[in-house]
C-alpha cells in the first residue's frame, strides 16, 4: 500500500495491417466489401490528384492559400468511410479527401480557396461542418453534436478531425474530458502528420505517443499506422461501433505524414530535410493500398491507368465548372446576409450605405 504502482486500466494499442510493402497481416484483414475497397482507392487517388492540381493552380495564381493533404489520404478516408450519411463530420482545415468522400464537390473546395462565400454552402442532406481554421476549436462542437444525437436517442456519431498540433490546445483537453465524463458518441481522429507548421511532433509534447493522452480522460485510445487504410478503417469501425453502442468516445492517433507544404504560404525547407520527406514517400498510403488491391485481384496495371484517367477528367471538369462560376464576381452586399437570421436595423443601414458607396464608386 505505502508506495505502490497505480494500474492504468485502459490499455493503449498500436494497430497496423498492411506493412510498408503492402503485405497483409491476414489475421487482421477487415471485412470490407470489394466495392468499398475500390471506392476508397478512387477517393485516395482523387484526393491526391486534386491536391496536386490545386497546388499547381495556386502557383499560377488561380487558387488562394490552401492546406494540401498529400500523404494523409488513408487517414482521412479510412476514418470517414465508416460514417453513415446521417453521422456528422467535423473537419479541421486539411481534410479535403474526407470532405470529397462525404459529397462535397471539388468546385465548392475551389470556390472556398478562392475566397468565394459560395464555397461554404453545405447541402441540407449533409451533416458536415464547415472547415475550422482555429486549431482544435472544432473538437468541442463535435462533442456537443454527439451529445445532442444521444439526447435525441439517435445512434448517429460525430467524428472530429484535427492535427498533432491541436493536441496542445486547451480545447482538445476540455473536449476529450467532456466526452469521457458524459460518455459521448464521438470519434476523435488525430492526423499526426509529424509537423505543426515548423514544429516537429517531438517538440509538441513530451508524451511518447499521442494516443496515450486518452488515459487522462478514461476513454479508449489507439494508435494506428495512418498510411495503412485498412488499419485506419478497422480502428474507426471499432470506434463507431463503440460509440453507437453507447460505450463512449475513442481517440484515434493516425501516424502519417504531410508530404507537401503546410499551406501554400509555407516553405518547409526552412525546417525539415529532404531525407525525411523521402523516407515517408516510401510509406505512401496509395502505393501500399494499390499493391494490396492488385494482390487481391481487384486492380491491375490497366485498371490503375484507367482510374488515373478517370480521376484526371473528373478534376478537369470540376476546375472548368468552378472557373466558369468564378467569372461571376457576385454581389458584395451579400456579406450582410446570414449575419443574423433577420437583418437588424443597423446592418440594413450599413448595407444601404455600402450600396450607395459602391454605385458612386462605379460612376467614378
Amino acid at each position, binding site marked *: 500500500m505505502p508506495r505502490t504502482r497505480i494500474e492504468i486500466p485502459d490499455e493503449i494499442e498500436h494497430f497496423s495491417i498492411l506493412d510498408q510493402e503492402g503485405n497483409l497481416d491476414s489475421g487482421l484483414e477487415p471485412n470490407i466489401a470489394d466495392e468499398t475497397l475500390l471506392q476508397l482507392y478512387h477517393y485516395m487517388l482523387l484526393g491526391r490528384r486534386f491536391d496536386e492540381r490545386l497546388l499547381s493552380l495556386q502557383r499560377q495564381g488561380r487558387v488562394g492559400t490552401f492546406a494540401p493533404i498529400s500523404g494523409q489520404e488513408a487517414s482521412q478516408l479510412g476514418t470517414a468511410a465508416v460514417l453513415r450519411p446521417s453521422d456528422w463530420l467535423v473537419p479541421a482545415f486539411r481534410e479535403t479527401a474526407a470532405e470529397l468522400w462525404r459529397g462535397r464537390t471539388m468546385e465548392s473546395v475551389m470556390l472556398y480557396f478562392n475566397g468565394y462565400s459560395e464555397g461554404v*454552402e453545405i447541402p441540407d442532406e449533409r451533416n458536415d461542418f464547415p472547415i475550422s481554421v482555429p486549431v482544435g476549436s472544432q473538437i468541442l462542437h463535435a462533442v456537443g*453534436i*454527439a451529445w*445532442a444525437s444521444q439526447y*435525441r436517442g439517435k445512434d448517429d456519431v460525430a467524428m472530429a478531425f484535427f492535427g498533432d498540433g491541436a493536441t496542445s490546445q486547451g480545447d482538445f483537453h476540455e473536449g476529450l474530458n467532456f466526452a469521457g465524463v458524459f460518455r459521448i458518441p464521438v470519434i476523435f481522429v488525430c492526423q499526426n502528420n509529424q509537423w505543426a507548421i515548423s514544429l516537429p511532433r517531438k517538440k509538441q509534447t513530451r508524451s511518447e505517443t499521442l494516443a496515450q493522452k486518452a488515459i487522462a480522460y478514461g476513454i479508449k485510445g489507439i494508435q494506428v499506422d495512418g498510411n495503412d487504410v485498412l488499419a485506419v478503417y478497422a480502428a474507426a469501425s471499432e470506434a463507431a461501433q463503440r460509440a453507437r453502442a453507447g460505450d463512449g468516445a475513442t481517440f484515434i492517433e493516425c501516424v502519417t505524414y504531410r508530404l507537401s507544404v503546410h499551406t501554400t504560404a509555407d516553405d518547409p525547407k526552412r525546417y525539415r530535410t529532404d531525407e525525411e520527406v523521402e523516407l515517408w514517400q516510401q510509406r505512401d498510403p496509395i502505393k501500399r493500398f494499390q499493391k494490396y488491391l492488385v494482390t487481391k485481384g481487384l486492380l491491375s496495371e490497366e485498371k490503375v491507368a484507367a482510374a488515373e484517367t478517370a480521376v484526371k477528367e473528373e478534376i478537369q471538369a470540376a476546375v472548368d465548372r468552378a472557373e466558369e462560376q468564378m467569372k461571376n464576381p457576385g454581389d458584395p452586399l451579400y456579406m450582410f446576409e446570414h*449575419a*443574423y437570421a433577420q437583418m437588424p436595423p443597423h446592418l440594413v443601414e450599413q448595407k444601404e450605405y455600402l450600396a450607395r458607396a459602391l454605385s458612386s464608386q462605379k460612376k467614378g
Partner: protein
Amino acid sequence: MPKMTMVQALNLALRQEMDKDDRVIVLGEDVGLDGGVFRVTDGLYQQFSDKRVVDTPLAESAIVGMSIGMAAYGLRPVCEIQFSGFSYQAFHQLENHAARLRWRSRGRFSVPMVMRTPCSGGVRALEHHSESREAYYAHTPGLKMVIPSGPRNARALLVSAIRDPDPVIFYEPKSLYRAFREEVPEEEEAIPIGTSQLAREGSDVTLISYGSMMRPTLEAASLLKEKDGIEAEVVDLLTISPLDDSLFTASVRKTGRAVIVHEAPRSFGPGAEIVSKIMEKSFYYLEAPIARVTGFDVVVPLFNRENAYLPNADRILRETRQVLAA
C-alpha cells in the same frame, strides 16, 4: 400576480421554456443539484432530470463550445457561465464560432444558444466577480447582447433570448438578483430583443442607461424633479446589441441633452457608441455636449472600496446638472 425577485423570474422563464420545448437544455457548472450558485436554476434538475440540466466539469470553453455543437444540431442550449469574469476563457469559442457559424455556412447551421452570466458589481464579491464588459460582446458581429434591469423584464427578455435563432449573451446584473421584487405574470410575456423602453417620460434631458444602473439613474431623475424641477426622460436600453437607437434618438431630439450611464469602464465602452449614434443622427438637435457617467478605466476595486467605483445617483445628478447648465 406573484411578486418575484429577479432570480425567481429568471427561474420561471427557464422552467416554462423547458416545459414547452424539449430542445431547451440547461448546462454549466453547478447548475444541477446545487441549482446554480445564485439559485437561478433551482429546482430544474429535480423537475427535468440530469438529461436536460447538465452539471459540467469546470471548463468554460467546453461549456460554450459544446453548446455551439448542440445548437447546430438543433437544440436550444442555455449555458451558464458562473461569473462573467470567467467568460473570457470561452471568448474564442464565441468570437470564432458562435458568432460566425450561420455566416460561415451560408445559413445551413445556426447557433440558437444563450450564454447566461451574472455580471457587474455591488454585492461585495471577490476579485473577477464584478466586471461589466458588455462592450466586448457588443463589438462582436454575430452576437446579441442583452441586459435586463428588473425581474419582469429579465423574465421577458430571457424568454426571447431562448427563442432567438442567434446566439445571445445574457448578462444578469447580480446586484439586482434579490434587490427588489416585481409582479411577474405567470402567463407568457416576451420583450423582443433589440428594443429599448421608456422608463420615465420627460422633456428636459434624456438619461440613457440599462441593467444595474437603471435604479440610480431613475433615482437621479426623481431627485432632479424634486430638487430642480427638471423633467428627465429615461431610456432603458435592455438590448445593447443590436442597439435600438429609435427611442433615444427621438428623446434627444426632443430634449437636446443627454447623459449616458453605465458601470462598464469608460474608455471604448458602450456609452461611446451611444454618443456616436447621437452624433450621427441628432447632432443638430444637441444643445450641450453629451455626458458619460461610467465606471473608471481600472480594475474594479476590492469590495470595501467598490462603491467609489460604481456610478451612483449623486454622480448622475451632478453630471446631469452640468449638462443642463451648459
